[in-house]
């Protein structure tokens, strides 16, 4: 019935990377599976990894469902993905450095000036400032979908503070604990080097004024934030400070942490709060989460903020269309990973096409995230489509549309046994002195049969993601 690419079965045959997993599932009786599933849930609950779902009310400590059936890539598949991801991360950073500097890509007519400078994420406050090593986005999360054995598309880029990496690490940890045999039978590339790699990346962009081993801190909005678990988890793994705005102050052009032994200088801040909350003197004056004077310390070279304020201008859905052009323009290479064809409703012709084909397309808000405010044409009722039509007509600039992609499926444990469910992939690329990517990422799975929306806020789950060693 399905025309979707099934990552495990092709033409009735098991694909090579999943060969051993077939034996594993065959050997697992239903009772054992249920027991293991309950055990996994208990483990997740014990470590406290939960995800608050915005706008849905209900239990803020709800777990993201974990599916025990791993998603597997061969070494060859991964190598190509890795080259494509690193290439994209390099191009996005080159773009950011350029648009806050000489703007060659705009002058060359490759990207419209209005899309850059009238973009809400463009921060005039950092125009002309060059961050250490010229890097704006140090952690680039690139959302990728697969539609065939050799067909991958980038769905969107996340240059600000992509979340979810703690799931990548915890999913692996729990799988290893529950199924040690699996990890003996399969040669799986480890992902636990992520924390060291992140720490190296952050340390490598310490300000020039820092003449010793840099002190690193993760700036969190606090425990009420839905990703607080991840903030404290990463701080623990890296052995760095976890701080809130109130723990910090600016003096003499540097940022200081209040400690029981007196103030300690902070050199690199991995911030998990939005630009507009960073510094009430520079951005929102009502922000209580940030640090007054932080942007002055940053712009005068006393501290590094990761990712750099203003990095969001590269991951906007309207700018997305131009990323392949960035790859050609800055790197002189052809893009290894393709974009999904995208219609911009801001363009009259595109908008006309979109309005005529709403029932076939996926329509998204330009600045939206988390799967909110989107229309999946083929899965929507006539009423939903008509309501959305009005929204687009009212504010066309706010929408883009893409074809409904045939997202690949992987086997997933469901009530009735094992069934194919759609998945995507978010790898986390680290950009510092070197560009690093741990072999793996976060696989999100749409647990509802037929659903193409993998966002955890819309009932998606997660899986362990394997890259097989050669």
């Amino acid at each position, binding site marked *: 019935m399905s025309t979707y690419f099934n990552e495990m079965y092709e033409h009735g045959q098991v694909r090579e990377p999943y060969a051993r997993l077939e034996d594993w599932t065959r050997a697992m009786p239903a009772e054992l599976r249920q027991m293991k599933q309950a055990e996994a849930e208990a483990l997740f609950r014990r470590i406290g990894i939960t995800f608050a779902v915005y706008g849905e009310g209900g239990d803020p400590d709800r777990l993201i469902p974990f599916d025990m059936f791993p998603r597997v890539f061969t070494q060859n598949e991964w190598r190509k993905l890795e080259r494509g991801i690193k290439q994209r991360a390099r191009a996005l950073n080159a773009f950011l450095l350029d648009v806050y500097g000489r703007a060659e890509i705009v002058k060359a007519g490759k990207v419209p*000036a*209005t899309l850059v*400078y009238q973009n809400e994420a463009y921060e005039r406050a950092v125009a002309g400032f060059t961050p250490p090593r010229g890097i704006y986005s140090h952690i680039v999360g690139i959302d990728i979908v697969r539609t065939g054995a050799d067909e991958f598309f980038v769905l969107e880029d996340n240059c600000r503070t992509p979340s979810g990496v703690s799931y990548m690490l915890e999913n692996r940890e729990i799988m290893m604990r529950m199924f040690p045999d699996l990890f003996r039978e399969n040669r799986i590339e480890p992902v636990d080097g992520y924390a060291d790699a992140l720490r190296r990346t952050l340390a490598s962009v310490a300000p020039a004024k820092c003449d010793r081993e840099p002190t690193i801190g993760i700036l969190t909005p606090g425990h009420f934030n839905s990703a607080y678990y991840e903030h404290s988890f990463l701080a623990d793994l890296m052995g760095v400070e976890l701080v809130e705005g109130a723990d910090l*102050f600016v*003096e003499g*052009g540097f940022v200081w942490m209040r400690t029981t032994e007196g103030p300690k200088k902070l050199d690199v801040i991995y911030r998990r709060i939005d630009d507009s909350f960073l510094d009430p*003197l520079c951005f929102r004056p009502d922000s209580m989460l940030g640090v007054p004077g932080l942007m*002055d310390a940053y*712009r005068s070279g006393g501290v590094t903020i990761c990712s750099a304020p203003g990095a969001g201008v590269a991951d906007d859905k309207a700018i997305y269309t131009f990323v392949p052009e960035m790859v050609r323009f800055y790197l002189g290479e052809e893009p290894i990973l393709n974009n999904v064809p995208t219609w911009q409703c801001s363009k009259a012709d595109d908008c006309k096409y979109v309005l005529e084909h709403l029932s076939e397309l996926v329509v998204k808000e330009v600045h939206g995230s988390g799967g909110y405010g989107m229309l999946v044409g083929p899965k929507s009722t006539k009423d939903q489509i008509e309501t959305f039509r009005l929204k687009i007509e009212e504010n066309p600039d706010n929408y883009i549309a893409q074809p409904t992609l045939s997202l690949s499926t992987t086997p997933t444990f469901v009530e009735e046994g094992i069934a194919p469910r759609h998945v995507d992939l978010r790898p986390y690329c680290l950009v510092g002195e070197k560009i690093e990517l741990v072999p793996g990422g976060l696989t999100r799975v749409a647990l509802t049969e037929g659903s193409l929306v993998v966002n955890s806020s819309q009932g998606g789950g997660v899986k362990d993601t394997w890259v097989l060693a050669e």
Partner: protein
Amino acid sequence: MIFTVSHVTTYRYEVPMRSAVQSLRLFPSRFDGQRTIHWDVAVEGGVRGGSFRDGAGDKVEGWSIRGPVTEVSISVSGQVETIDNAGVLRGHREVAHPLAYLRETTATWIDDSIAALAIEAAGDVTDPLSRAHRLSRAVSEAIAYTPGRTDAQTTAAEALALGEGVCQDHAHALIAAARSLGMPARYVSGYLHARDDGESHEASHAWAELHVAGIGWIGFDAANRCCPDANYIRLGSGLDAREAAPIKGVAQGAGEEALEVTVALDAVQQ
């Protein structure tokens, strides 16, 4: 003209503050119309932080004051030479793109009456420079200079509805009107030397800059119905008064704050 400037701003706190942090945009711009002979900024009891020149060409310097803080006093003294450039900001180095100055802010929100004022003022004139002059004149006529009727929080739309205001309101209204026509505009803070008309004027001043295609940024002082000349000293710019403020500060603590400002601008040479 050569001016000596002496500008002291004092904040007094009823209840001592735990600490205070400031970001100062209190340095004369560098462009063909003015030259700094000397310039000193000091915050009594404060620790000087980092300084840098931002993308708009403004020098910014951070300061912090350790608590308990009962008073913060920021003193500026300097000497600047100016020449009349008919308001044109020539020779000013900046990286920020003019299109970044089309963004609306609370103070420069474009309501129907501002949009209408802009359309009527522009009429069928398409030349951007003539448009800019017409907009400035229209704002001068729509808002009478009346101190005490508006405050720091008054928006452009509110001042226009009131028909009265001070230089901040004229600048906000002109900025909003220009942006409504797609013309980049920004708020400029600085000093104005009192004219010899027997009246006393506030030496701290503000006006608008409009970006005119083919020329660049040009200052328009709708409050005084003119373009900045040798009587103006330019400090810094921003999307609105809040962003362009020469002094931005945050004091940690609760309690009332009292502000006292004295500015003296004397011509030492014509």
